[in-house]
């Protein structure tokens, strides 16, 4: 289990992370989403022990990570900016990993290399961007880590490889109770892989929830009545969003679906439909409830006060 408590990190005057707290249980695939500069990579670097936090604690199974070789031996980190030795082949990198990571497994390395179809004797410099990413993933997975960290790893992978990688991650999680943390700025990428999702915005953890819970606890209801009506009709129901066009109202509701439907049905609407929400929509409405609005120009969320300003 990874426990983060009050984590903060500054670079000169810029606050990259501001008092982040979260708990990532064993065997979880934890997704972290946020716009550029939200602090995702910084978070990963802190959790993997690359950076030392300015304040707060990070513990893995109850032990701090920074300068802890024992814990670091259980970590594999695939950053967005990959590193390979100059002129090295995959085999050369494998030798490096083998010398560094005690659990590195040559057989798994060979198997994964073959699965991905990469030439281990070819200089990695000659690989495409996607192939380099595959190489990094292979090396990380071959280390049999207990904790996997992927920083925007799926960028540059084609859909087939993306699915392959996802399946390998799930395999490790299922078979060895590994824990994976994946960051991305695309919700769609994480939707079908992660168990938990967190949203980082400007260094702060805005939202963290179980995906299933997110999907089921929020739903859309389309309703229409003969008479005119407004939002007040639905008092007692937890509305995150209310919009009306003509005589049809769209409600974004948090709560038990059956109970909500029954309550609305008791009002004798002429139209009553329950529609599922995509994860993007869930996030959008949750963020609105928290006072953040989606800024289409910058692809990010802005605070309500900024919008009003």
């Amino acid at each position: 289990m990874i426990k983060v408590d009050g984590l903060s990190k500054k670079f000169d005057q810029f606050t990259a992370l501001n008092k982040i707290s979260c708990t990532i249980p064993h065997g979880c695939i934890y997704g972290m989403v946020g716009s550029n500069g939200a602090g995702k990579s910084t978070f990963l670097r802190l959790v993997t022990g690359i950076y030392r936090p300015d304040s707060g604690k990070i513990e893995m199974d109850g032990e701090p990570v920074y300068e802890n070789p024992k814990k670091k031996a259980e970590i594999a980190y695939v950053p967005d900016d990959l590193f390979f030795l100059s002129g090295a082949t995959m085999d050369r990198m494998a030798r490096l990993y083998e010398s560094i990571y005690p659990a590195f497994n040559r057989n798994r390395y060979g198997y994964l290399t073959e699965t991905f179809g990469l030439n281990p004797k070819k200089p990695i410099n000659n690989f495409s961007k996607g192939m380099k990413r595959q190489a990094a993933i292979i090396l990380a997975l071959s280390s049999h880590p207990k904790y996997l960290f992927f920083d925007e790893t799926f960028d540059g992978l084609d859909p087939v490889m993306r699915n392959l990688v996802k399946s390998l991650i799930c395999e490790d999680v299922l078979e060895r109770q590994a824990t994976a943390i994946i960051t991305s700025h695309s919700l769609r990428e994480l939707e079908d892989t992660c168990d938990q999702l967190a949203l980082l915005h400007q260094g702060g953890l805005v939202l963290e929830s179980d995906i299933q819970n997110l999907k089921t606890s929020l739903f859309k209801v389309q309703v229409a009545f003969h008479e005119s009506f407004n939002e007040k009709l639905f008092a007692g129901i937890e509305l995150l969003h209310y919009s009306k066009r003509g005589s049809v109202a769209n409600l974004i509701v948090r709560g038990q679906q059956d109970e909500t439907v029954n309550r609305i049905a008791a009002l004798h609407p002429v139209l009553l439909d329950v529609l599922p929400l995509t994860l993007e929509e869930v996030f959008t409405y949750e963020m609105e409830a928290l006072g953040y609005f989606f800024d289409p120009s910058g692809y990010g969320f802005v605070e309500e006060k900024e919008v009003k300003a």
Partner: protein
Amino acid sequence: MKKTWFDARLYREGLRQLRVIGILSFVVMALGAILVPVGEAISYSSQIAVQTAQAGAEFNPEIMTLMRAHPLLMLGFPVLAPIMSLYLFHFLDRRSSSDFYHVIPQTRNCLFLSLTAALLTWLFVILWGSAAICLITCKLLGKYLVLTTASVPALVFTMTAASLLVAASVLLAVSITGTLFTNIVVSLLVIFLPRAVMLVMSICLSSAMPYVSDTHLFPLMDYSWNVITGIMFGWFTGVSGQVIYSYSAGAYTLILAVLYGILARFMFVRRKSEAAGQAAPSRKMQAVFRLAVSMTICLIPIGIVFSLITNEDVTGSSLFGVAVLYLIAVMVYFVYELIATRKLRNLAAAVPGLGILAALNVVFIFGMFGIYRYTESQQPAPDEISYVTLQAGANSAIAAYSYSYDSSEVDYFDAYLEEIRLDSPEVRKLVSERLSETIRYYTDGYEGGIGGLLGSNNIGVQLVAIKNGGRTLYRNIFLTEADRKLIMEEYKEKEEVRQLFGSLPENDRKTTTVRSIDRLTDAAAGRVYAVLREEAAQTEFDEWYALVQGMENEGEATIVGRVMMQTYKDNQLLTCTLPVSTKMPQTFAQYVKEYQAVNQEDLGSIAERLKKQDAVVTDCYASGFEQGVNRFYTNLSFSINPYGEEDESENKKDWEESRTCGRELGELLDLAGTRQVEADGDFMLLQVTFYEEEQYHYLEVYLAAGQDDLPDLMQKNLQRNDGKAKD
């Protein structure tokens, strides 16, 4: 937490990463270690081939130091160490690689020590391995080359220490900075700036105070303690590079390397991975580096300003020059910031730092002026001086009298006389007075003090070491000829000096060798030296001392030649040319014997041809000069016509005269084999150049004969003002 100090696998990985550079470097060094001695042996063998053709198969192998046999060893610290260090630790300059190495399951301490161990392993293998190859090569070429055994460990030690210092400085720099540019700049600052400051201060102060030895101005801060700066600054100041054989300099350098290494390790452990790609870990450190770089440039105008103040010679052009130099320093200040950070907006933020730069300059100048005044006041009274020693070098008193003085060599006797303490009241009083007068001469604008004696008393400058309480003052003071004689008299009273002059080192052909500086072979010179060595031990000290110092009284002895002795003291080459004089008859006899043997064969042959009277001596030219008492050196040249043909147009009487001259000359040359040349008798050195069979021949021969024994025709030539003969 295990593996906190060293990880063998990480160490092996470090070795692997340096493999290409390491192997390439080793091959280059090994080739140099083999080819240079082989080249020297080939060159030397062709030289001795000439000598052996003349006088037999005996010759001395060339004695050389390891530096001469393996000069590539000097590449260790300026090339190998920085390149390998920067290459192995370059991962700290990029975010991706820095993150990678900081996520691996090792502590930073272990990472640093394991990789550093790999770096040091390669350095040791290359330096020591190539030195060993050189040793083996020289051993195999022992017929031609002999390595001075003392030079080997000394040079290997100093070069290793210098390489370690550079490596440690680079490691310190990479642990602080995050770009290649700043890695290099900060490394250079760490290595050179402290010493550069000392050097500039030393040059400025010794320039303002010529009476102070610039190499002894700041004890321990003297740049020659540091092997690297001792070598590199020595190129500019002309100071001897003997630092490469100095164990004390090597030890100091090694200690400095260890200290820098410890600091580097400390900084590495504390380093933030996010510093990768950043010029400095913080704005404050960036300001420090910026100031340090600018101050390096400011050292020049600081020196000029100091000179202007002490010389009281401020002119418009000098002020303008100072202004321009400071402008350059300011430009460097901003340019460094721009190159290091690549942000224009930082230039504005850097402006306030100029105030600190200015303040540092003021502190420097005032500090140097304070040292100047303090040093000027150091004029110990005679009773405050414990003893004085005369230092060897360019201003040596002994050197002023020595024959064929060469400022690049250190005289054998000078080097040992440095250790002789002069503590008589007369010498102490003399040195005290001369020091005060010398200082007054400079401070009064080259007029006061000893200035009144200049030009009249054969005054020279002597470097002396004055022991004053717990400190030693090294000062250049003026000494008159009378002063030197007084000092020489004190030397003569000392048993150690008598021992020094009376016990010359043995020509063992390992640490000591003898060379000829005239027509003798080295082997012949060695035989002469052996006799001279024994005779010197038996000769009256005053007589031998005067001969060596070139202070022989005219009319009492003749010096017919010299032999050069070379030996090593503390890995420093010492030389000495020793006179062969008529005052030492055994040495003289051996010398003459060796001289005659050089061209005995030629001599006999030419004498026979001249006596047969079928050779006509023509174009006869003779000249001579006096040397010593009753000695006559005659330079004789003539042509021999072997067919005895006469030119009918010539005067018959002149031809007869020429034939007679030839016969008499032949008989004179016979004396070389019949009459012994005695040191206390008449003798001459006949130098003969003759033309025969379209070739010029030359020979020299000592003859137990006087001017009256010369052929009439030659005597006529000599009597003429121009000495030119007419047939």
